[in-house]
Every structure is written in structure tokens, then in C-alpha cells.
């Protein structure tokens, strides 16, 4: 795995992400500053971490989405390169037009910082091959704007094409408004682009990978990615 973690002013989860990538793949990712125009040669995974790029000015992720490095990410994704956006990274991918829809203010207007349960909808993607379809995983969220919406046609397409990879659910995997913390439509927590190589998700799998901290349900995502990349190599 030759990962590149993008760094924007105001991002604060890049070191958590780098630590997890190193832990799982045994290799340090490159940290790539937003003003760069190119990704390191041979990059096979781009990760946009969480935080508050540009202080969430204008709209969450709006300014980061227009930074120079994003043109390189767009070109890389256009060639099928794997991209993972977590939290603010998901917001940036939506603002950059790499994923459809928008993350709106949480329905209850509160910043939500807690563990949530996610149902993994598919296991046949590079991002979820480390899980079983229908498996419930416990990972943290920390966001004020995670309430996913898109127009009806887009939602119908996402659902019809199986591009919803994660949904907020109860501990036993039921979709229930009481467990849909931010009010996202169809309890959507993570979606794929139409070519299946770009994933955006609000929760932070990178924070649940070490037993010393608690649950390790986030490992599957990174271990699966590492395996997918090894096989492709």
C-alpha cells in the first residue's frame, strides 16, 4: 500500500489516519500538502482525513475542494485510483463533485461525538472486503454536518446501484430512526461513486483499530484495502 494522506489547513485527523495506515500496512503514508499539484508517484490510495479544513468557512469542505491537489486527485480517481474520504474528507469529496449529494447540518443541530453502529451493506468492494455483508461494526463519529441528502433521482440511483456501503443502525443491525444520529436520508453513512473506486463516509474507522483503545472494528476496512491493493499489484 502506497497511501497518500492529504493535509489541508484546519484538518486535524491526519495523524490518526497515518498511524492506522502504518499499523495495518506496515508502511508510512505520504502526507501531501494541499498546495501540491501532484500526488507522489506510485500512489495507490488517496485518503482525505477528517477535521475542519479552512474552519468550515463558506460550507464544510468547500474551499479545500477547490485546492490545487484536488485536480490531481480528480485525475487519479478518473483513472480508477482508490480514494477514501472520512468525515470532512467525505464533505470535501461531495464539494469536489467526486461524490453526489451534500452533508447538511445534523437534524438535531448538535455536534455528535460518540460511537455508532454501522451496517455494512456489501462486502464485494475494495473498501469492505474485510467485512461480511450485513455485518454490524462499531466506530466513532464526530461531526456537526453529517446529515446526507441528495435529490430523489440521485438517491434512487445510489440505492439501485448498491452504492450505499454503510448505514447507521441499531446494535443488532436494524435501520431505526432512533439510531440514525444525524438524520441522514435512508440512514446513509457512506457511499461509493459510480465506478466504485471513491468512498466517502462520515464515521471514523481509523479510530477503532487498536485493542488498547477499545473496539477494533475499523481494522477490516484498512486490512481489506491493503489486501485488495496487494492482489492488484
Amino acid at each position, binding site marked *: 500500500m502506497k497511501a497518500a494522506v492529504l493535509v489541508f489547513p484546519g484538518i486535524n485527523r491526519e495523524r490518526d489516519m497515518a498511524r492506522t495506515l502504518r499499523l495495518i500496512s506496515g508502511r508510512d503514508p505520504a502526507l501531501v500538502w494541499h498546495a501540491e499539484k501532484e500526488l507522489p508517484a506510485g500512489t495507490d490510495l488517496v485518503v482525505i482525513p477528517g477535521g475542519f479544513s479552512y474552519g468550515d468557512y*463558506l460550507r464544510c469542505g468547500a474551499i479545500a475542494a477547490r485546492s490545487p491537489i484536488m485536480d490531481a486527485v480528480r485525475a487519479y480517481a478518473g483513472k480508477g485510483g482508490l480514494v477514501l474520504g472520512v468525515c470532512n474528507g467525505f464533505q470535501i469529496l461531495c464539494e469536489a463533485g467526486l461524490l453526489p449529494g451534500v452533508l*447538511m*447540518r*445534523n437534524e438535531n443541530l448538535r455536534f455528535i461525538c460518540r460511537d455508532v453502529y454501522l451496517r455494512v451493506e456489501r462486502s464485494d468492494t475494495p473498501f469492505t472486503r474485510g467485512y461480511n455483508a450485513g455485518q454490524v461494526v462499531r466506530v466513532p463519529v464526530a461531526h456537526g454536518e453529517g446529515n446526507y*441528502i441528495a*435529490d430523489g433521482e440521485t438517491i434512487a440511483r445510489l440505492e439501485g446501484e448498491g452504492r450505499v456501503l454503510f448505514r447507521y443502525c441499531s446494535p443488532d443491525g436494524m435501520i431505526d430512526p432512533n439510531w440514525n444520529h444525524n438524520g441522514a436520508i435512508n440512514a446513509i453513512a457512506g457511499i461509493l461513486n459510480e465506478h466504485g473506486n471513491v468512498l466517502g463516509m462520515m464515521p471514523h474507522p481509523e479510530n477503532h483499530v487498536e485493542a488498547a483503545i477499545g473496539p477494533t472494528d475499523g481494522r477490516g476496512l484498512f486490512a481489506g484495502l491493503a489486501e485488495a491493493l496487494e492482489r492488484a499489484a
Partner: protein
Amino acid sequence: MKARVTVTLKSGILDPQGKAIEGALRSLGLVGVSSVRQGKVFDIEIDGGDRATAEALLKQAADKLLANTVIENYKVDVLG
């Protein structure tokens, strides 16, 4: 040249911030407020050029950055 770009949420898009403001206005005892939607105003100065060029420039600015047209509408006013 001075101009103003006004960005508003499309109808049908839930606006929890507007709702909270609406509630606060009611709690202040301001009767008659039936709904609040929050938007953004950008006051922009443009170097020289004519009105049509300024309008085209601001339209680009709004499409590319100031508004997210998935959820927002915008209006460009060149004030002269």
C-alpha cells in the same frame, strides 16, 4: 464596481438553522413570524469592466464556489 451575490437554500431543503432562528424569534415574543430561512450575502468589488462582464464573472464565481447548486440558489446584483 460593487456587486452583491445572494445565496439562498432551495425550497424543500431542510434548514435546521433557520428553524432554530425562527424558534428564537418566537421566544422573544415577536408574533407574526411564520418561517425563517437562512442564507448568505457576499459583497464583492470588481475591478473595472462593464456590467455584462461583471455579471458573467460573478455567475462563474457563484457556480464554482459561492453556492452549492445541489442545495442552493443564487442571485447576482451588479450595483454599479
